[in-house]
């Protein structure tokens, strides 16, 4: 039940792409390629105009997607149009979730009043997301302290809410996340923001140790770009690997060089396969998987 199922049997490979990057049609093909390549969960970015938590790679992906006309409404169409059999998570910023209610309310009231303060908060967005088949959310600028309305809406519609745990997260903050998290926890492998790096950080092991008694799967992200990375991460105890920038790089490169969609999709599928295989190798190296 819920996203946890994707981590149940073997380490999960969780790729990220910005929906609609660089165009609606290409993006559909790319996401489907990831599913082909072995994705267990796919994080789909709904682009926000001020992506303060992203590295350059994903920031540029967001610009491309917005320029190509992506909106929350189109995003939901995109999800509905996707032909994949993999659980989907929406990764976006809180204002888009929060305003969907406002703007829906506004539209309903037909400009009857100048007031824009929401009475609904995140509920309309979650309802619509559930409707098109989204199973969970990652909201990088929503702290656990402010997450209650979104958590409640997710509960109402049966969706998961994933929190990001940083290497520096501890104490009360960690407790507040643990209380509200579901599906999986996003373990940030290092300080900084999203982006592919060349090595695996020591902080990962420490973070996994801090979360060892949590009963949700731990997926590690930030900086993973090769099968060997994935292997190392999973060997260190992760239940899954989250990979974004390394995949977005392929999309960006294909877009810049005008490569055919199929060629780019093939490369994505191929990297996905490598990452998934790496994760599987990593699982073999672990003394004993503790969860089933």
């Amino acid at each position: 039940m819920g996203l946890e199922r994707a981590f149940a049997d073997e380490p999960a490979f969780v790729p990220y792409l910005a929906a609609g990057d660089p165009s609606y049609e290409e993006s559909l093909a790319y996401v489907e390629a990831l599913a082909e390549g072995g994705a267990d969960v796919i994080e789909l970015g709904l682009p926000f105009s001020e992506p303060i938590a992203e590295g350059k790679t994903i920031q540029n992906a967001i610009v491309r997607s917005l320029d190509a006309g992506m909106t929350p409404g189109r995003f939901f169409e995109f999800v509905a149009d996707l032909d994949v059999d993999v659980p989907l998570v929406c990764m976006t910023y809180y204002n888009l979730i929060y305003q969907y209610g406002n703007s829906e309310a506004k539209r309903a009231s037909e400009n009857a009043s100048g007031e824009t303060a929401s009475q609904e908060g995140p509920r309309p967005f979650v309802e619509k997301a559930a409707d098109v088949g989204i199973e969970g959310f990652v909201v990088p600028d929503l702290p656990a302290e402010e997450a209650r309305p979104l958590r409640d809406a997710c509960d109402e519609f049966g969706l998961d809410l994933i929190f990001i745990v940083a290497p520096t997260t501890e104490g009360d903050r960690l407790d507040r996340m643990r209380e509200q998290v579901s599906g999986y926890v996003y373990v940030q492998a290092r300080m900084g923001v999203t982006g592919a790096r060349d090595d695996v950080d020591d902080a990962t092991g420490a973070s996994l140790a801090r979360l060892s008694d949590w009963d949700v799967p731990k997926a590690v992200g930030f900086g993973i770009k090769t099968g060997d990375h994935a292997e190392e991460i999973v060997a260190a105890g992760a239940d899954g690997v989250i990979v974004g920038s390394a995949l977005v790089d392929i999309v960006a490169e294909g877009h810049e060089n005008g490569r055919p969609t199929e060629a780019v999709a093939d490369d994505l599928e191929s990297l996905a396969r490598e990452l998934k295989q790496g994760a599987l190798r990593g699982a073999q190296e672990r003394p004993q998987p503790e969860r089933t």
Partner: protein
Amino acid sequence: PKFGEYGGQYVPEALMPAIEELADAYERYVLENEDGFMDEFRRRLADFGGRPTPLQRAEQLSARYDTEVYLKREDLVHGGAHKLNNALGQVLLAKYMGKERIIAETGAGQHGTATAMAAAHLDMPCEIYMGETDIARQRPNVFRMRINGAEVNPVTVGRGTLKEAISETMRDWATTVEETHYVIGSVVGPHPFPKMVRDFQSVISEEAREQAIEKTGGLPDSVVACAGGGSNTMGAFAEFVDDTGVELHAVEAGGSSLEVDEEEGVAPNSATLSTGGEGVLHGARTKLLQDSDGQIMESHSVSAGLDYAGVGPELAHLVDEGRVIPANVDDDAALEAFHRLSQDEGVIPALETAHAFGYLEEHHDELGDTVVVNVSGRGDKDLETVVEETSKRDLDVAPDMSVLNRVGGGGL
């Protein structure tokens, strides 16, 4: 950490320890004056920054409006604007916190130059992120930052303007929180920034309040300040908030129009308090300019410093509470006011500041007998814009610049 429902800490988890550490330092050093922080801050504001600034009676404007008009002369602060009050406070605080490096972002360059000055003064390495588009159009400010020894890091992602620079600075901070302090330039961002910046800027109203009493025998009837992010506004208002007899007027940029172009995602104004909706931007819940999806709109103003789609959460709250009166003045009226103050009083205001005087022109008869207007900065930085924008319009008060055409010569 909230002002009603506004404020909060809507930031990536990786930044949470940094802002928690900062919140702790704010309480200890700023609120409790631990290790004499506030004493040193005030001493440096005086010796380095040139405080107190005068509260000057504006003789010609007082006659023009039959109202006692007083100018709070923040244009005389070192660097030419109130910006230093905050930059100096934060860089000093970073020093007390044991940080070894300062970062900041800048759009038009005013906050960047203030931070670079403060960092040079306090011998702190400093890096300023600035979009490459902004670098190309704000070269004098880039020179000033470099001359003060700051690194200027061009941000090439996206459109190369303020929003990308903010993301890039957040990114740096998220990677380097342990040794680095991010100096935010206005009363925006996650807690504790809105309170802390307000407290550093409140020296404006602290002085103005005392000076008004000394010069006029009482409190003013109104205080008028322009509002972009709102740091000069909150600085000018803070110590008057409890004086319920003093009206507080926050004047935003009306730009060319209050109508928005939803299709293009463009608001041809920066009138967040008057026309914006509630939302979450840059770490805080506040009022902001957004489309119906919640995407942030591109704002516009003849004044780069007011050109921001958000506003400080405390100001949003004070407006909702009815304590602060929001208003806006369009580009034309701001330009006229710029010329009027320059010609009548010999004070060339920043274009930001000019909005406050545009409001005074339009509403002087509703502001009571005594009005304090905050001259948030000087206009030297805006000369090129003013000449260009004035030449596009037919303004009664604008001077004829043909002397420059007659003798030829290059650009500004």
